[in-house]
C-alpha cells in the first residue's frame, strides 16, 4: 500500500512539480515526505501562487527553481524561508502572473505548444521572461500585440484530494485547478483522506468533482493531509499552526527546530518501530 513517503520516492531529484496554493488542496503531507526523502533540485510551479508547502520545501533545501505568481503565508505574512533563500541566492525565481500559469497548463491539457493571453504587456514580468513572446494578433485588422505563453508540462502534479475510489479516481469537488494540473502533468501523485467503495464516474453528483484515474499515477491515504490548509468543508485552516511556523522559520535555526519536530521526527519514530 502506498504512503506519502512511497509517493515521495517516485519523485526524482530535479523533477518539475506543480503544487496548488494553500486555499486549494495542497498536500502538505507529501511536501513533508519529500523533505524526509531529501529531495534535491526540484523545480516547483505554484498554481498559480505558492504558500506553506513550498516554503518548507525551500527551507529544507529541496528546491532549485520556482515559477509562481506570489509566495505568501496569507495572514501570517511573508514566507520566511522563500525570502531567505531568495536573499541568499540559493533558488532561481521566475515571476509570473496567475492567469499566465493557468494558461500555460491549459496549453498542455490541449497538447498545443502555446496559448495567447491578454494583458501583461508593459509589465516587467514580461521583460524578465525571454520564454514568453509578443506577436501581432494575426486575426486583427489593425495593431494588436498579444502575449504567447509556452505550454508547461510538469512531471508531477502533487495535491491532496478528499477521497479516492476503488477505480483510482479522486474527488476534489470544485477545486478544478487540481484537475488542470493533473491533466497537464505527466503524472499526478495524490494523497487522500480516505478510499471509498464504488466509482465516482458512475455517480452524476460526484463525477463533476472527480479527476479521472487516467491522470493519476498513485494515491496514498494521509488523514488531515492538507493540514494546516483547509479541506473544503471537512476541516478548516489552522491559523495557529501557520503562525507558529512563521514565527519559528524567521531564522534558519528556528526552521530546523520546527523541521525536526514536525517533519523529521516521523522518520525516527518509524525507524524505532
Amino acid at each position, binding site marked *: 500500500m502506498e504512503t506519502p513517503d512511497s509517493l515521495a520516492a517516485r519523485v526524482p531529484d530535479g523533477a518539475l512539480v506543480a503544487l496548488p496554493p494553500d*486555499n*486549494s488542496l495542497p498536500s502538505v503531507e507529501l511536501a513533508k515526505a519529500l523533505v524526509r526523502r531529501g529531495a534535491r533540485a526540484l523545480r516547483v510551479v505554484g498554481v*498559480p*501562487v505558492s504558500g506553506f508547502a513550498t516554503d518548507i520545501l525551500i527551507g529544507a533545501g529541496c528546491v532549485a527553481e520556482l515559477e*509562481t*505568481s*506570489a*509566495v*505568501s503565508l*496569507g*495572514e501570517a505574512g*511573508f*514566507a520566511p524561508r522563500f*525570502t531567505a533563500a*531568495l*536573499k541568499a541566492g540559493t533558488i532561481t*525565481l521566475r*515571476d*509570473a*502572473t*496567475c*492567469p*499566465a500559469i*493557468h494558461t500555460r497548463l*491549459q496549453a498542455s491539457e490541449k497538447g498545443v505548444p502555446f496559448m495567447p*493571453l*491578454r*494583458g*501583461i*504587456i*508593459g*509589465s*516587467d*514580468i*514580461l521583460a*524578465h521572461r525571454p520564454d514568453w513572446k509578443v506577436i501581432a494578433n494575426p486575426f486583427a485588422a*489593425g*495593431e*494588436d*500585440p*498579444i502575449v504567447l505563453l509556452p505550454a508547461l508540462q510538469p512531471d508531477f502534479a502533487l495535491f491532496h484530494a478528499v477521497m479516492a475510489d476503488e477505480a483510482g479516481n479522486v474527488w476534489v469537488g*470544485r*477545486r*478544478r*485547478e*487540481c*484537475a*488542470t494540473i493533473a491533466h497537464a502533468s505527466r503524472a499526478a501523485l495524490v494523497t487522500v483522506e480516505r478510499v471509498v467503495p464504488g466509482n465516482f464516474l458512475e455517480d452524476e453528483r460526484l463525477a463533476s468533482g472527480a479527476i479521472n484515474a487516467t491522470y493519476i499515477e498513485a494515491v496514498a491515504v494521509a488523514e488531515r493531509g492538507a493540514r494546516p490548509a*483547509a479541506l473544503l*468543508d471537512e476541516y*478548516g485552516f489552522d491559523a495557529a499552526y501557520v503562525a507558529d511556523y512563521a514565527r519559528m522559520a524567521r531564522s534558519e535555526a528556528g526552521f530546523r527546530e520546527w523541521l525536526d519536530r514536525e517533519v523529521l521526527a516521523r522518520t525516527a519514530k518509524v525507524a524505532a518501530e
Partner: protein
Amino acid sequence: MSHATEELLAVTLARLIRARPLKHVAVGAASPIPAAAVWLVKLAQPSLRLSLLHRRSGNPFTEGTRELFDLTGQGRIDLFFLGGGQIDGQANLNLIGTGDWPGTGVRFPGSFGSAFMYMMTPRTILFREEHSPRVLVERVDHVSAPGVSAPGVFRRGHAEALVTGKCVFAFDAARGRFTLASVHPGETVESVRAATGFDFDAPAEVPATPAPTEAELATLRGRVRDEMLETYPEFCARVFNRPSSNEKSAA
C-alpha cells in the same frame, strides 16, 4: 457617532464603486476593507453580483481560480481592487519588490493576477491603507502592472482612484497623473504632500472625505459584519466589535 478609520475607508470605497453602474465586482484575497465596501453596495443593490475569492462556503467559482481570470478576460467582471508594495504617480503597481530584480532589497509576495486584471477590468480602484513615501513613490522599482499602456495595446480600463489612509486621489489616465480629490479628517494638502513620494495636482479647495452616516455605520456593524464574519473573523472583531462611542467616552 464615532467610527474606525476602516469604516471611513469602507464607505469611501463604496461611494466610488457606486459612482458608475455595474453588475459584477470581484474582491481578492486578504481585502477586508474592499470586501466591506462591496457588501455595503450589494445590500442596497441586490442584483449586484459579488465574487469574493476567498470565501470557504459559497465560493463563486466552480472551475477553480482560473475562472476569475476567464471571466475577466471576457469582460464579465466590471470592477476589481488592486494595491501594491509600491504605487507611483503614473499608477504603476509594484508587487515584486525593491532593489534589483526580483527584489533584492525587500521582496514583496509577487504580482498575483495584477498584470492581467489591471488591463482587462473596465474599472479598477487602487487601495492601500499605508500612505507613506515608501509606498507612494515617484517611480516604482519594478512594474508588476502598468498604470497606462502604449497606444494599440488592448486595455479595457485604468485606475479610477487611489484610496489611502489619508486621502482619495482621482487618476487621469490620459495625463497619467493623480489629482487629490478629498482628504480624510485631520489631513491637509500639505500633510498629504509630505507623505507622498510622487507629485500630484490639487484644486484650490480640497474637500474633506465625507464621514460615514449613522445608517452606513449601522449597516457595516450589522449586516455587513454578519456577511464577513466567516472570511474575516479577526477584522470583524477588531473593527466592528469595538466599544461603542458611549463606552469609549466613559473609559
